[in-house]
């Protein structure tokens, strides 16, 4: 019998580790006062922190999860395990270049060239990752709802990164592509394509598989699930396309299309949150684990971010609420969902690496024995409470208050990282199981 599985992603834990380091680094930049709200949204420190968050943290975390998740939903292996490593290298090196470039824009024209060079490396990494998970998804058609949503998300990911590369070129070598200069006004659409079309649709798709699986709830989402996918896709596509087109063409129908996109997105988010509530209410497993209990906070922040964005647009002051909405989406919704699910995924992958081969031969712990839920739960409460308070300070324009809340967010994140580390090291596993353990790993099993 095989003892090592090609269903396991060899590099996922390494991607998670890099992602968490980047998340803490971004929080460090905010705490150092180098970013919004202490500085302008276009300040180098803000741009560096934002890209550390969305590329360094969220993108790597999501790709690490997809490298493991796609073989589960397609019952097919990744195109290549090695391609996942190349994607990681391209994205990390590219991100480093981009950060150098952001600080170089005002300091050194030569250093600024690191921005398009880094963005190109990120694009190559993203294309490698998209190919790696896209091919098994396409080959597994017809896909269930989670797979369709992930595939849609991948299209938005490539669009987002290509838009970002265009920005980088427009920033640093305007003479090369003068027609791109106007694109710099479309950074909001770049953010919407990334945070909405890519991250949110993909997170929704993944949650539609994982939540029912973990909580033993019905997986078939029926018409509401299809509505979330179709309205979400149309909404983000319309809003982004119409927004970008208005850089060159000022036409009433584009504004109508953009507004229609926002309406469709709002309806999709509302249906999704209602459907998630339905999953929780119809679950067969009454006593659920902490990662599912804490995820409720992330869903709440999605609703809060959407409500804030709508009220900002409705009152004609999008500039006032948009940064806080983005903060809620990045830290509360996507970051919160990521941290909560890592609390299950990291122990699960660790279990497979350390104890999987001993199953049937020796006494092995349960995945649940690798964590202490009470400790994890306390960090999640602190994390979400600090984000809620931080968003209130940001809305009121209090930069010191916001930063003090980010200090609490950083403390909670560090606490959770410690718990992930302990799970990976088998810190909580009782001695009677110890003989079954093999040395910890970051990059096994082998291809």
């Amino acid at each position, binding site marked *: *019998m*095989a*003892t*090592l*599985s090609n*269903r*396991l992603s060899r590099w996922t834990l390494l991607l998670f580790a890099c992602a968490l380091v980047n998340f803490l680094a971004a929080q460090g930049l905010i705490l150092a006062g180098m970013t919004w709200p202490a500085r302008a949204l276009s300040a180098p420190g803000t741009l560096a922190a934002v890209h550390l968050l969305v590329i360094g943290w969220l993108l790597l975390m999501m790709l690490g999860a997809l490298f*493991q998740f796609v*073989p*589960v*939903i*397609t*019952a097919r292996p990744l195109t290549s395990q090695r391609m996942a490593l190349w994607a990681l290298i391209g994205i990390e090196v590219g991100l480093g270049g981009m950060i150098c470039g952001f600080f170089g824009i005002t300091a050194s024209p030569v250093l600024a060239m690191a921005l398009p060079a880094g963005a190109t490396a990120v694009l190559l990494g993203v294309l490698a990752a998209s190919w790696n998970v896209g091919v098994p998804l396409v080959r597994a058609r017809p896909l269930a709802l989670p797979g369709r949503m992930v595939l849609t998300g991948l299209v938005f990911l490539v669009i987002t990164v290509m838009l970002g590369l265009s920005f980088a070129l427009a920033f640093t070598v305007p003479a090369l592509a003068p027609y791109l200069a106007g694109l710099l006004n479309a950074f909001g659409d770049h953010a919407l394509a990334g945070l909405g079309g890519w991250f949110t649709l993909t997170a929704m798709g993944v949650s539609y598989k994982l939540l029912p*699986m*973990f909580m*033993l709830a019905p997986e078939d989402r029926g018409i509401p699930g299809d509505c979330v996918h179709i309205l979400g896709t149309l909404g983000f596509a319309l809003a982004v396309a119409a927004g970008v087109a208005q850089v060159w063409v000022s036409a009433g129908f584009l504004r109508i299309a953009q507004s229609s996109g926002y309406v469709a997105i709002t309806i999709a988010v509302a249906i999704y949150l209602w459907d998630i509530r339905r999953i929780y209410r119809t679950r*067969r*497993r*009454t*006593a659920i684990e902490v990662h599912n209990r804490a995820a409720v906070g992330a869903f709440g922040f999605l609703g809060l971010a959407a409500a804030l964005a709508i009220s900002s647009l409705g009152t004609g002051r999008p500039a006032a609420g948009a940064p806080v909405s983005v903060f809620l989406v990045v830290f509360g919704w996507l970051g919160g969902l990521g941290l909560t699910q890592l609390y299950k995924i990291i122990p*699960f*992958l660790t*279990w*497979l690496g350390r*104890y*999987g*081969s001993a*199953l*049937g*031969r020796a*006494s*092995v712990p*349960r*995945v*649940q*024995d690798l964590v202490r839920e009470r400790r994890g739960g306390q960090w999640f409460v602190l994390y979400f409470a600090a984000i809620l308070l931080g968003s209130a300070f940001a809305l009121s324009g209090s930069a010191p208050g916001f930063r003090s809340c980010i200090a609490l967010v950083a403390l909670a994140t560090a606490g959770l990282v410690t718990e992930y580390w302990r799970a990976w090291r088998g810190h909580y596993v009782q001695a009677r199981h110890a003989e079954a353990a093999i040395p910890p790993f970051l990059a096994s099993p082998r291809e």
Partner: protein
Amino acid sequence: MDAAITPDRQYVLAALHEVIDPELGYNIVDLGMVYELAVDAGVVKISMTMTTPGCPAQDYILAGVYERARSLPGISAVDINLVWEPAWSPQRMTPIAKAHFGIQE
């Protein structure tokens, strides 16, 4: 002592209680993942499933079932047939497993 044992279905099933589904943290027998099990002249034939297709732990669980059954005295071969029909559902759990997860009968 080993030579005196004639392994039967119950004997093998009892041993398979030591093989867990790592995600649910419960043994595969009470979870209802073992659909059929027969023992004939020291050969164990098992028909079983996973809680979800594409489960990352699939190969480990199958290997665990094989190793545990094969290690029993009087067992010379183990033949596992992984099936997806009928699909697993929480209804397949034994009452004791349902009680553990708080599932109503």
